[in-house]
């Protein structure tokens, strides 16, 4: 198990008001995402616990693109992957963010 911390610049969407919400389930190659309010409106913070070794660069690329794709400033993501592939990670994150926004 490796842990990755990433603190990225991001735009904030002020209308977002996240309650602590849990998306996804850890099992059968799935992963768990926890979205919470962060401390800095201009940053997005990620903490990833990954079961896959040597996947850090891929994780960084996935999360950097995600933070550039959505106004996630002021949010904090805790992620437990369960050996999930980047496809699952991206999909879960997009789903988590869009649900947050649509809610």
């Amino acid at each position: 198990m490796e842990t990755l911390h990433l603190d990225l610049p991001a735009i904030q969407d002020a209308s977002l008001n996240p309650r602590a919400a849990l998306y996804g389930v850890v099992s059968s190659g799935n992963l768990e995402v926890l979205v919470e309010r962060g401390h800095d409106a201009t940053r997005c913070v990620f903490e990833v616990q990954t079961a896959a070794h040597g996947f850090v660069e891929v994780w960084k690329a996935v999360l950097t693109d995600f933070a550039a794709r959505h106004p996630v400033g002021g949010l904090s993501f805790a992620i437990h992957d369960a050996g999930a592939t980047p496809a699952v990670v991206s999909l879960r994150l997009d789903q988590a963010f869009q649900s947050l926004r649509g809610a």
Partner: protein
Amino acid sequence: MNALQPIRTWNHEALRRQARLERSTPFSRGKAVAARDMVSLLEALLEPGDRVCLEGNNQKQADFLAESLAACSPQRVHDLHLVQSVLALPAHIELFEKGIARRLDFSFAGPQAHRLARLVQSRSIEIGAIHTYLELFGRYFIDLTPQVCLIAAQAADAEGNLYLGPNTEDTPVIVEATAFKSGIVIAQVNEQLERLPRVDIPASWVDFFVVAPTPNHIEPLFTRDPRHITEIQVLMAMMAIKGIYAEYGVERLNHGIGFDTAAIELLLPTYGESLGLKGKIARYWALNPHPTLIPAIEAGFVERVHSFGSEVGMEAYVAARPDIFFPGADGSLRSNRAFCQTAGLYACDLFIGSTLQIDLEGNSSTATLGRITGFGGAPNMGSDARGRRHASAAWLKAGQEKNGGQTPARGQKLVVQTVETWREPGHPAFVERLDAWQLKQDMGMALPPIMIYGDDVSHIVTEEGMANLLLCRSPEEREQAIRGVAGYTPVGMARDHALVENLRDRGIIRRPADMGIDVRDATRDLLAARSIKDLVRASGGLYQPPKQFRNW
């Protein structure tokens, strides 16, 4: 003036056949052979160097005859040349380890892929070629005609007529090539009956039959438990249905056997229905009776299915849906691999399947280092049939796209590869160079084992989006179109972002949002069945899944 010519005999093969039959008489009573005499019979009639087709299909295996052949004395029986589509059983490998067989021409070696690669490396085997099914069947009538074939049937009657049951598979083509070229046809059967439900192979084509001690093995290769279908596969299935099936109006098709295509089958009655596609797409199929097709059949999407083989557990369901499948007068399924492959090649407008590796030209292969898998049906299904001369809307539209919008003289088959960009961490589906090239070198093969050539591929679907290779106008565009859907693999991350955006502007690359697909909708709730039990329910209790798929 006439020089004295040596007298040529014109019935050498028939005489040789007669000699084989005479040597066999001590071990048979008419055509019936006792199981305990089979090894002696084979030792008596086989000759060194014979071409033998030991029926190994995708599913049905002449396993008793394979074990009998492997039990022959290598002093008596050696250097055989096996010409069979699938190398699936440990006994098949033993033949080469013992020196009973030396040379192999085949199509597929899924379960024995590792052991086969080791045999090649230790020079215990010579491989002629890895064929597609139709290619190998074709050669049965040209230069690889079997002298002896060992086949599997469901039942025989006292005269030696054979009933093949629902898993016909390769049997007719093997018997045809052997029986009509003075060869010897030997069948193992599960039972002897007074009266057969129907005659699939007439007794006059059969030389011997044996009731095997246990029924022949059949593998349920086409059963995919919907529990294992992921949301990514649901998302890719949505793209395939909306971006390809609907846009081209694909009515006639073949699916691969993976979870990706099972997801499409299970999305037809839900997502497909919501798009108003019933009666417009996926009406005619070249496909085995996939359990995951049941909900689409029940929903009225599917009008007709012709099959290569059958599927364990689907017998009662198929028999209860004679309008959909091809049953005999007795009610049970008649399948036929040679005909269904021909149908998939010439009469279908789309093939979609998954693979293990795709390179920058779009070539794909399931061969990875240390494994010689072969291809089976995918290369016939997944290739543009250049002999095709009938039009359809889907075929013409694809041809037009490839031809720069001009009406072409011929259409184009839709050949779709659907893959998640990472199969698992550490194993990207997109690679700069296929392992197939290394295998070619390691194994001393004439050709790299490429399953589907890039120039036949029309679309690649991944979780990141869809690349339409028909619209690419140069090798560079093609490469960037592939990189542009290759996600976070090294191949994907090395993309030229500006070029990829340009391709997206031109509709060559489309993201889910570009197709009006909201990724939030990609959940397992869209699957018409989410478990094997759901499939049983959808079939009205007619589908009887094999034990290993029952988890209740």
